[in-house]
């Protein structure tokens, strides 16, 4: 009996050993095929390929994935969804640093794009591994160009965008004696100067705040500048950049006049601020309409309005890209999936599912998008409005490494400190010191 068991165990071990060796050999063979060039060859049409797709919050891809699998029976997709963008980005950066664990198709938010672009060697050039139909003219040119690194290597296909508009409370403006007819509002919101001047008037009359948070306006202003926090040589511009200095002076000046509700964006108090009517205007990228609706609640329906007059022209806040990290073993299949998902037809479906505003020229021409209205905002033609705003965006500003970090962890706290009582000069020093420390 004992011998039988031993023999059986030995047999099992032997079988296992052989299997492992076979697997290892197979793995080597798989790897070997790619050693010919930098890019692994495409799998055959009948070869079974498993792809992973990593996204955060809502991309609206749930129904699209089974459709792609139906069209490509040899491909099996695993969709990894993360709830929040922040932890997702951190997880992604850690896996990028560790050299393993990333998905074949990895979504990247615009705010974290600068961190990825400075590590572009860890991503495939999509013009090389991607299909021919994913050509530059598919996207708005600023969206397409922003997906390239300094040397012109394309690492991301654009998914959605967040063209900026302005949201305002008609009832509050009226109570303060400000005009609420379309033409007057447009004139009032034409430039940052006129916007803050109107705010000073509003705050003086009502004793209430004009906008939610200084950082929300400042970020939009800096994004409109030709050069941001870092120039193309990745040198910190903060101290020499007159545009940033001017924006700082304007925003902190407005804070000094009581125009800011001093609510940190996306905090619980900010959420409450919507219901408490703590502010009368709000920088409103396309996706912010949903946030306003949810936080202001049904009791404020019809009071909010949205206008296409955004101070200083157009702007963009948010939106994402799909990338293919070099960690992927099937870059061609991954790029094909990313290209298909970011095609106009699919992005329109994603828009219908989750409201992600498409960045593709054809999608922006579609009647179903253009005719969209929103009852909450007084039946505003929001489709047409945001399409117009998307076309106003100038060429993308170069974002150097740590750009997003400077915005979130240096500028926003410095402005918050000014809102909490620090002098604008000390706040500026905090910004300069913080940015220098990050850029070193």
């Amino acid at each position: 009996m004992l011998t039988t068991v031993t023999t059986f165990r030995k047999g099992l071990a032997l079988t296992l050993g052989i299997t492992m060796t076979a697997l290892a050999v197979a793995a080597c063979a798989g790897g070997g095929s790619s050693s010919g060039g930098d890019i692994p060859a495409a799998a055959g049409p009948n070869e079974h390929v498993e792809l992973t797709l990593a996204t955060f919050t809502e991309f609206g891809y749930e129904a699209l994935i089974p459709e792609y699998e139906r069209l490509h029976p040899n491909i099996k997709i695993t969709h990894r969804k993360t709830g929040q963008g922040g932890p997702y980005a951190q997880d992604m950066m850690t896996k990028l640093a560790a050299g393993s664990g990333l998905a074949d198709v990895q979504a990247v938010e615009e705010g974290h794009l600068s961190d990825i672009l400075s590590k572009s060697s860890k991503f495939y050039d999509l013009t090389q591994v991607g299909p021919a139909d994913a050509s530059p003219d598919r996207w708005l040119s600023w969206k397409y160009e922003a997906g390239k690194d300094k040397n012109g290597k394309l690492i991301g296909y654009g998914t959605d965008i967040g063209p900026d508009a302005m949201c305002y409370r008609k009832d509050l403006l009226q109570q303060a004696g400000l005009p609420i007819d379309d033409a007057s509002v447009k004139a009032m919101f034409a430039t940052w100067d006129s916007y803050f001047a109107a705010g000073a008037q509003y705050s003086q009359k009502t004793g209430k705040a004009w906008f939610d948070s200084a950082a929300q306006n400042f970020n939009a202003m800096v994004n409109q500048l030709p050069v941001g926090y870092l120039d193309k040589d990745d040198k910190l511009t903060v101290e020499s950049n007159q545009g940033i200095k001017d924006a700082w002076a304007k925003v902190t000046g407005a804070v000094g006049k009581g125009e800011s509700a001093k609510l940190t964006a996306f905090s619980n108090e900010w959420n409450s601020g919507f219901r408490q009517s703590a502010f009368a205007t709000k920088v409103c990228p396309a996706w912010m309409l949903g946030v306003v609706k949810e936080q202001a609640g049904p009791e404020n329906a019809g009071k909010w309005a949205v206008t296409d007059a955004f101070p200083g022209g157009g702007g963009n806040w948010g939106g994402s890209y799909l990338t293919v990290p070099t960690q992927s073993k099937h870059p061609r299949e991954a790029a094909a999936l990313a290209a298909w998902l970011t095609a106009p037809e699919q992005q329109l479906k994603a828009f219908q599912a989750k409201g992600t505003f498409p960045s593709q020229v054809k999608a922006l021409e579609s009647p179903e998008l253009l005719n969209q209205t929103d009852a909450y905002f007084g039946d505003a033609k929001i489709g047409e409005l945001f399409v117009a705003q998307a076309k106003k965006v100038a060429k993308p500003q170069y974002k150097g490494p740590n750009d997003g970090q400077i915005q979130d962890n240096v500028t926003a706290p410095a402005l918050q400190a000014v809102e909490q009582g620090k002098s604008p000069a000390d706040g500026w020093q905090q910004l300069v010191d913080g940015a220098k420390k990050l850029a070193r």
Partner: protein
Amino acid sequence: MTTTVTREGTQAGVRRPAPRPGLRDRLSRWDVKASPYLYVAPFFIVFGIVGLFPLLYTAYVSLFHWDAGDDNPDFIGLDNFRELFADAQFWHSLENTVSIFLLSSVPQLIIAVLLAAMLSTRLRGATGWRVGILLPYAASLVALGIIFANLFGPRYGLVNGLLQTIGLSPVDWQANRFASHVAIAIMVNWRWTGYNALIVLAAMQAIPKELHEAALIDGAGTVRRFRHVTLPLLKPTLIFVTITSTIGGLQIFTEPKLFDAMPGSNNGGSTHQFQTVTLYLYQTAFENFDLGYASAIAWVLFLIIVVIAGLNYLLTGRIARTSKRRGA
């Protein structure tokens, strides 16, 4: 009788022509020598992998300018440490840590002892009360953090609402450095006071009744008995509780992280007014990806904890010696 048999046995063994011990013999001797080490090995192997190796590797990394994902980090010697000692933000975060630690540990231990004293009196449903004070400890730390951050909201928070109802002016729990430390300390105390009270209670109940009775006969009142009988006998337990809360207090992380109004932020407020050392360490490593500098912070924090633990050890030794002398 037994010895004879054994001796005969050995003699029989010696008589055998084999001059060296057999394989079985050698194995069993080796077994006796090596087994104890093998039995304790798992702990040391696991400790080596997850404790010692990271510790030493952190020291190694701290000598480099090492960005996460950097293939060729630059060796810079002790530059990270030099920079750290000149880094105002580091000292600032250390001050915050010590301040929050003092604001939490001191009241916490005092309240814990008083709670334990109350719980050791005859209460109806004693078990219920004892379980009750442990409940905050069982609740999820993250849930507590979110709830407390809401309670201490500067504009619409419940605490400020109450302050205003009774005619006081509201406090900006986020912006004011001291107020933010108080708010975070309250969060820590809420969670840990009951836990410490139970430990103290256990020690209190181990005090022999005879001592109390003797003091009672000598005419000592409740307060006097508490001060001169209960407290001195609680000393070893109090030291234990102090050391554990010191270690916990110097590593405080979750509460300040969740307290920040900016969701997910590691800044510890707009001017780092409540950023603790561990929060700064975390931000440096996993937000700025500056692993070399973060390792240097980790090592300095480690040394600070070692020094404070050493002080505690000396303190314990001194107290133990004095009580022994008193006993003799």
